[in-house]
């Protein structure tokens, strides 16, 4: 559950946040929304795919963390065993809300980051933002700016008709099979068939790089299968 409230230095002057607990928000997540600026970091471990937002049906970028619903294969021994933590996790417990057409910073009062004895204050004693809060604001800004880049990249990919459904069927060591549905990726053949002007344009927009990062990152599915197989073998 989340309970978002606008943050202010009177009501929340005593709140402390333990950033190391943020990863608990991803314990049961198999697909996490990601933004273009973090693609190259993500690609070191996670497959980056395109899926549809459940509420709007719009295409969105996501990193795959598991092969089944609610499965995060990077979550082991109560910890996120990954080199890079997606911004969507790093940002916890802070969100951007809107009030009277203005963006305001919110905090999730139910977040496990708030119920720790090792937290850091978010406000200094004089009511000014602590270094921790300044850092959190920068992350939120990066996310917001990244979401704009997401929209532009999705627009480019769909208007050039570069999407194709990603169908993966995996058989695990215990003979059990799982199938991934509702995922999309770049159609290599269509990408290769683009005209010169289109390719140059993608390159100038800095989008060609993101597209190839996404394609390359798909290889990380083997990493996920390997993790899953190890998990399954341990149970055999």
């Amino acid at each position, binding site marked *: 559950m989340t309970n978002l409230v606008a943050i202010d230095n009177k009501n929340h002057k005593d709140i402390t946040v333990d950033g190391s607990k943020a990863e608990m928000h991803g314990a049961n997540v198999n697909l996490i929304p990601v933004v273009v600026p973090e693609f190259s970091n993500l690609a070191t471990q996670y497959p980056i795919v395109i899926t549809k937002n459940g509420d709007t*049906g719009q295409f969105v970028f996501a990193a795959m963390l598991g092969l089944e619903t609610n499965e995060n294969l990077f979550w082991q021994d109560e910890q996120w065993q990954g080199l890079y933590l997606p911004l969507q996790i790093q940002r916890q417990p802070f969100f951007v809300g809107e009030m009277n057409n203005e963006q305001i910073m919110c905090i999730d009062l139910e977040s496990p980051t708030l119920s720790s004895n090792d937290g850091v204050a978010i406000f200094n004693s004089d009511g000014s933002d602590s270094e921790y809060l300044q850092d959190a604001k920068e992350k939120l800004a990066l996310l917001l700016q990244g979401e704009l880049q997401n929209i532009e990249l999705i627009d480019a990919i769909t208007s050039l008709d570069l999407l194709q459904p990603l169908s993966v069927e995996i058989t695990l060591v215990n003979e059990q099979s799982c199938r991934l549905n509702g995922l999309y990726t770049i159609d290599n053949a269509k990408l290769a068939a683009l005209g010169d002007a289109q390719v140059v344009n993608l390159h100038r927009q800095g989008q060609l790089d993101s597209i190839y990062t996404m394609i390359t990152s798909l290889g990380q599915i083997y990493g996920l299968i390997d993790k899953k197989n190890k998990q399954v073998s341990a149970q055999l």
Partner: protein
Amino acid sequence: MNNPTKTVVIVGGGSAGWLSAGLIAAKHNAKGTLAQQGVKVILIESPSIPSVGVGEGTWPTMRNTLIELGISETEFIRECDASFKQGAKFAKWCDGSDDDFYYHPLVLPQGFGKGDLAAHWLATQHNSDSQQPQSFSNAVCYQEAICEQGLAPKTIRHSEFDAIANYAYHLDAGKFAQLLKRHCVEKLGVTHISDDVVAVNSDDNGDIASVATTNNGDISGDLFVDCSGFKSLLLGEHFNIDLVKCDDVLFIDSALAVHVPYQCDDSAIASHTISTAQQAGWIWDIGLQSRRGVGHVYSSRHTNDEEAKQALADYIGVEVDSLTCKKITFESGHREKFWHKNCVAVGLAAGFLEPLEASALVLVELSAQMISEQLPASRDAMDIVAKRFNDTFLYRWDRIIDFLKLHYMLSSRTDSAFWRENRDPATIPQSLQDLMTLWRHRAPADLDFTSNNEVFPAASYQYVLYGMGHQSDYSGSPHKLHDHDLATAQFAQNRKLTQQALNNLPSNRDLIDKIKQFGFSTM
């Protein structure tokens, strides 16, 4: 080649004219430049004659038609005030009591083709210790449950035209014609002439050589498509092809139509057509995005306009004086043939039947599709195509008449002469009587019909027959219940699918709001 078919002239706008123009233009590359141009398509629309604008319900075939035309589903839903239709709910048709209703859904019965589930369902009806009696439609199909909850057939995550449950549309016919017109002219290369046709000029062989217009002179063509509505300007007036009436079978000949506003912007939109039987006819109720379209169709021999209007007011729940109705009268029937020489009629110019199963637009689609697909390359082949077209569509009209009559003849309502006369064998076509004899001892099956592209499949007959309480008596053939395990599994599968659908589908209104805001993706 002698007299190749290079130009098709369509007389009349409206949904019949524009659907015909669009389907022919799309298939025959009307928009190509001179070298690649296939067939030139010209549509002449009278600026002074308004279209009738009925036909607010479609069949699932419309999804394919839109795909063939290249119209996006998002655009269609946004511009035509359209909503989703998942079949029809027939209220008060069986005995007229308050809780009397059944569904004719668009999803086939579970396991249809694998086994005869109807036989097993009938058996459970006679088995007194079986649990709560369940309607046939609920036992074999999950769509009734979806409709009763006002749910949509898909989610915003589905791509255009994709679905969980088979669906059609409710639409504003006027807005639909506008969208078709723009698409045909801008995207498909149809030439639009706004003018009145004042005369028909004949060729030596009796073909139509051209039609004379007020401001654009004579427009010549190789094939003329008559979409002039009830007037039937070319086929009826010029060629004198008679109307074959069927008012001895289907008594309804009048309609009073009104628009009913919703109480508020977020009022629920019914996900199906509601048809409620009345003393001398029935009332349709169709939910669009911005309003409901409601109308009373009735037999003027069995009631009068005042009574009909009162019944409509009672149904809507308003004072009769507050209703501004549009009155439409019609003759039920179809032309003796539809394609004569180089002229073929589509839509009301070909015929009309009461809108009980929304057969008007689907006949337009089927006609336009066959004309487009079979378009004779030259005049030599045209008479052959014409004969095949006539055979096909005479068969289809007859089957539709049978199917509509089925709804009336199965009723046990006794409240008026209208219903009693509807059960008089003299008013029931022999073909339907024969089918009823077959179905005394078994359920309708695909091979009961001879066409490989049947308008109403056996499944539809099953929904209506068993929805209306017909009993096929299997007591003489208990061996037909041998596949008991298969049937049990199919019933269980349907229960599972019903639960899944109820858990996952949004409301009809909710989905339409999201389409307006976000649109469907094309993949």
